[in-house]
Each structure stands twice: as structure tokens, then as C-alpha cells.
């Protein structure tokens, strides 16, 4: 797959556009692809953030956090990605709910973008929450505003919008009487966990987009198993979207740590510090 365009849209956050006609024709909001930058790299699952069917391209956002994403960050427009497979996983259930809150952090800001676009086209009122440590780490603000009724920003240092985390902002909103018929959140595990905890007392249906370790992404390895409502499910084929209130979060947080010390370290460098 050929890289058409690649840019660093925020420090250490890259948007990469590749030619992939067949995927562009099929992909739905919330689906992901499996990328192997070069023959030595890992299979890396990445959410599809945007696509253009007539152009035959898809765009995905990634953080340069491990040796394989590092390699991906090094590739230049015109170069080929060794392997790119998709679309994978299920899409969000796009229909008319009424009012939908979408919460994105890190790569998830790109992750909620196509969902916002599609949900708004279905006639929903769409409010996006976009968060980062600081204003300069946010990206796609304008794009997101174009497809939402409102975008609410949360920055840890208060440089744009609410000072604090997206889950704090959402909690404040809910306390003041804001109601959503559905909440969707995409981003780091900790963000999705906290959002689920915020909406739980309101019994507000919350969909989380899990990003566990995966090898094949087609249901073969079981590395991505999560426990939902007491049952083991595979995020790659049964998900990646699950009910955040039924998720066994302790297990998710523990499994996530298995290999990704490196990722967590670099994740902490850029965002959403653990409160």
C-alpha cells in the first residue's frame, strides 16, 4: 500500500493517508486496519479515522510509541507499507439516537471523527469532547467542528476550553443536566475506563472501543480477549466496541500492561496523566 501523504499533526502524532481503494469503499466508522510497516515489524492495529471513496484513500492516526510505529513514522510519502489489511472488526451502530456524546483522546480524536460525521448525517445532535494535556497536542479541531453540533475541549493545563480531563468535563456537564442517549469513547484505556465510570450512575449507555494487544486481528490468536458481562470475548471479531458498563476493567488494565510498559511510559509523556 502506497503512502500518499503523511504529516505530524501534533507532537508525536501522525496522520497517514494511503491508497487503498477496496478498503475505502467498505470501511465504516469504528473499524480498524492491521498495519505492518516493514517485514520485521509487528502487526499493529490502528483505527481508520477518515476515508475518501472517490479518491480511493484512507487516513489513519497513530502515535509514535513503539519500534513498529516508529518505523511507520519514518516511512515517507511515495513509499510502500509492507502489509495493510482491513477493514477489521465491527463498526459502530450508526442510527438515530437523538443526542450523542463522543469522547476522544490521543488517537481517538481521529477515531471519533467518522462516527461524528455519520451520526450527524443520521440526524443526531452530536457533541464531541476532545482532550489532550495542552492545546498544542490537540488536532483536527476544525474537521471535528465541521461534523459536530458542538466540540468541547478539555486540556490538563487549561490552555484551551475546560481545565482538566474530558471525563471531568463530561461529569460536570452531566451534573448540570445534560443528557445523552448514547456516549461513545475512543482513546487510551484509562480514558475509556473513566468515562464509563462517569456515565454509569446515570445509566447512560456507553460504548467503548477497546484496543487490546492483537496479533492477527481476525479471531485466530485470542490475545485480545476481554471479559464482558462475565464472558470472554475477542475484541477483534466480537468488538472492538463493547458496553463500557459491562467491561471487566481490572482485567483490561492488567492485560494491557503485559508488553506495553514502553507504550505506557510514552503515553504518559503525552497525555492524560493518571489522576
Amino acid at each position, binding site marked *: 500500500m502506497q503512502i500518499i501523504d503523511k504529516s505530524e499533526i501534533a507532537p508525536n502524532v501522525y496522520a497517514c493517508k494511503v491508497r487503498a481503494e477496496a478498503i475505502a469503499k*467498505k470501511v465504516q466508522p469504528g473499524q480498524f486496519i492491521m498495519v505492518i510497516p516493514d517485514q*520485521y515489524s*509487528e502487526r499493529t492495529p490502528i483505527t481508520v479515522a477518515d476515508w475518501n471513496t472517490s479518491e480511493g484513500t484512507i487516513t489513519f492516526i497513530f502515535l509514535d510509541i513503539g519500534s513498529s510505529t516508529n518505523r511507520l513514522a519514518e516511512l515517507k510519502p511515495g513509499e510502500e507499507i509492507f502489509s495493510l*489489511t482491513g477493514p477489521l472488526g465491527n463498526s459502530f451502530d450508526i442510527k438515530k439516537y437523538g443526542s450523542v456524546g463522543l469522547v476522544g483522546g490521543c488517537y481517538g480524536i481521529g477515531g471519533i471523527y467518522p462516527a461524528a460525521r455519520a451520526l450527524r448525517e443520521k440526524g443526531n445532535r452530536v457533541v464531541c469532547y476532545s482532550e489532550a494535556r495542552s492545546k498544542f497536542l490537540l488536532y483536527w479541531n476544525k474537521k471535528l467542528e465541521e461534523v459536530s453540533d458542538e466540540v468541547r475541549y478539555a486540556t490538563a493545563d487549561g490552555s484551551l476550553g475546560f481545565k482538566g480531563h474530558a471525563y471531568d468535563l463530561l461529569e460536570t456537564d452531566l451534573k448540570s443536566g445534560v443528557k445523552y442517549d448514547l456516549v461513545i469513547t475512543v482513546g487510551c484505556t484509562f480514558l475509556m475506563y473513566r468515562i464509563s465510570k462517569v456515565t454509569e450512575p446515570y445509566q447512560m449507555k456507553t460504548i467503548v472501543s477497546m484496543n487490546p494487544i492483537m496479533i492477527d486481528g481476525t479471531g485466530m*490468536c*485470542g490475545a485480545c480477549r476481554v471479559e464482558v458481562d462475565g464472558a470472554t470475548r475477542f475484541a477483534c471479531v466480537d468488538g472492538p466496541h463493547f458496553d463500557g458498563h459491562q467491561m471487566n476493567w481490572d482485567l483490561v488494565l492488567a492485560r494491557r500492561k503485559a508488553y506495553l510498559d514502553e507504550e505506557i511510559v510514552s503515553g504518559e509523556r503525552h497525555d492524560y496523566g493518571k489522576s
Partner: protein
Amino acid sequence: MKKSFPGKDTIMAKVSPTKTPMREQPPQERVRNYDEVPLGYSPQEAIFEAERCLMCKNPRCIEGCPVEIDIPGFIQFITEEKFRDGVRRLKEKNILPAICGRVCPQEEQCEQKCILGVKNEPVAIGRLERFLADWEAGQGEPELPPKPKPTGKKIVIVGAGPAGITAAADLVRLGHKVDMFEALHEPGGVLVYGIPEFRLPKAIVFREINYLKKLGVKLYTDHVIGQIRSIDELLDEYDAVFLGTGAGLPWFLNVPGENLNGIYSANEYLTRANLMKAYLFPKYKTPIVKGKYVATVGGGNVAMDCARTALRLGAEKSIIIYRRSRDEMPARDEEIHHAEEEGVIFKLLSNPAAFHGGNNSWVKEVECVSMKLGEPDDSGRRRPVPIPDANFRMPIDVAVIAIGNSPNPLIPSTTPDIETGRWGNIVTNLETGKTSKPGVFAGGDVATGAATVILAMGAGKIAARGIHEYVMSKK
């Protein structure tokens, strides 16, 4: 030479009662590398072994082979040193002889039926098959069959495992245009992501895939059918579809603690090690946890492969936990034997009841129930029953669950009008490979549940015949 059958006794007097041994890497050495363990026959050894064949008039071995190779026929060519003719004879029925010679459970198939085996060891049919295939590989480019007349029909194969490869080869040789879609970035199915390098070198699989491409099959990797294209969309473009998508969905034990860190499915463990080459970490970037004490649960080939991989990754102790006794183990004899030689510890008549973790969510111990054998079950094997109050614990830091797989639900779930059975397997007609959906055929593990390479190939052959009849009778 030995065309007629000159009376069994005279021959029996001459032939060696045992198979000509095959040279192997010594156990102490091989557990430190990933190279193939058995080294193969020299031409002299092959001829010597081939001479043991009685050239029966009614060869029973052929009945034992799921693809009905003319076994005495190719063996005869070996005795005459006509290796090229031998290869041709083999390939009439089996396009993957280098693979089958290495991984077929011969002791339950061809060699089980061999008359010599009644009193002595049977002819080493698998080893001879491997010899011819390897000999051909050493001769440079393989011979291509004459180009068939094009039929104008287009067929699509989903899944590039043994079933798909065989169906593709047969169909392209009948003059059809054949396209093949594979979900992973490499073709080969279990042959590349599952069976380890030390048992089946990947270069052999890629050689066979190349042969398939030379026959004219177009291969597209990174294509997950059901997602990128539905079966109905394929039917719009092709005259028939063959599904050879295998049994890829791993089973777990469903015991407490199974989702702790350090517990893998066999598929994950082997895929990390083989397909992603974690054994060459850090050159290849996929990590694998190199446990000190690794427990593998199960008694099949998959379990042996995991336990032997663990040793090569540096485990101090590699333990197989199996709930029946050694006799009931479904693995090939040779694999059990190799595992024992390499120092794998067998904890038989034991079954995990729980995994216990340390404070950091990593597995620390496995708790097992001791079992005894009771009455035979449906499979004819004696059913293991737990002995009360006989639980014991073993310290481990990695566990691999190798108790089987069921077919991946992706295609059935995106193709509601295809009939599936109890295990999510796709239901097929055994004589034609037809599924309940017109124009769609299936075979291999996706239809039978996890089985063997040669059975998958046999199913691929049957379906190829079924597809040929179907497309040629279609206007």
C-alpha cells in the same frame, strides 16, 4: 525388477525388520536452534528403504492415504533410481509431497495399512515421499505440467492453507482461472503460522506456493473475506467460491485465572514465534515472553509444537499437562518421541482447574486435578475422570492452552444463508464439497473442525472435482 510377488517368506528373509533410520540433529544441540530436526534420506538410504517394499498386488497402503497416492508405484521408481518419474507419480495425486512426507500421521494412514507392518515395521512411506520431494527441490526449477485449454470459468479460493492450495492447484490445471484470497500477510495457513520451522521449514512452504503461482494461480494476501468483500460479492464476479478458511478460533479451558498475563492460546504463542518470528527478536519486533517454567495444556501435535518451541526460546522446564495417558495422546508418535528426547516433562492424567496469579496479574501457579481413566467415550478413548481431593499446584510463569480450535465465525456471520453445524463448522456434502449456498464449496478444517493437513488436502481435491462439474454444467 520386483514386478511380481515372489512369495512373502523369501522376501521377508531379505528385508530389514525395521525402517532405515533417518539422521537427526542430536537433542542437546537441536533444542538450541530452530533448524529442522530430521535430516532426510540420502539417495542410498532411500533406495535401501524402498527395497523393503513388497510391491503387493493389492496394495493396502493406497487405501490408507486420503489422496490415494500410488505408493508402490513411486517406491518402485525409487528402487530403479528414476527419481524424476517418482516425483511425477507422487504429484499426480499430491502437490505438497514435501509437506505431507513431514507432517502426515503416517502411523494412522498409509503405514498403518502396510503388510510389512503386521510383523515388523512398515515401509517408511512418509520418509520416502519426503526424499523424492526434497530431491526435486535440489534439481532447480520444478517441472510444470502442460498448459491446459482455458475453460473461461473464474473460481475464487478463500484461505491459502492446505485445503485452498490443493483446490487451487487442481482447478488451475483443469484450465480455470483461479484467484486466491488470504487474510494474513503470508500464504500457507497453519503451515506457516502454526507448525514450527524446526518441523516444517517455511522455505518448503514458500517453494510450494511459488509452484502454485507458476501454475497460474493469482494470490492476494491481506484480504479478509467477509469484510473487504462478502461471499455474495464474490459470486457476482466468479463462477464458484471455495472456502478453505480453516479452524482458527482457539478454545480456552474456561477455568478461573485463565485471562491472567502470561497465558496464551497455542495460536498466539506459535504465531508470535513462527509467523512473526519472535524467536529472532529483536531483529523482528514481535515480542514473546520467554518463560522459565512453561506449561502447555493438551496432547496433540499443537501441544508438542508449543512445548518444543518453549525449550528453543530458552525455557528451563517445559511441561505438558494432559488429562489422559500417553496412549491416548492424539499427537503423531514421532512428535511425542521428539518431545521426550528433548526433555519435555509430561504431566499426564492431570487437568488444570485454575491459574493463580501474583500481585502483578501474571500467572504464578497452575492448579491441577489428578485424573484416572474410566469408561471409553464417543471417540473410543477412555474418558478421564477427576480423582477427588487430589489437586496439586506447580509454579509456572507461562501457560499455553493447546486444546483445539473451532472455525472462525467471520464468514458464517457475514453469510447468513450458509448452513453451519454444532461447532460453527460449515456443513458440506462429502462427495462434492457443496455447501447449502449455491456456487459455494468448502473443505478442510472449516468443515471438519481441526484435523490434518492431508485430510484438508483430500477435501480440497474433492471440492475441486465438485466445482469443476458445477461450473462446466452451468451455462
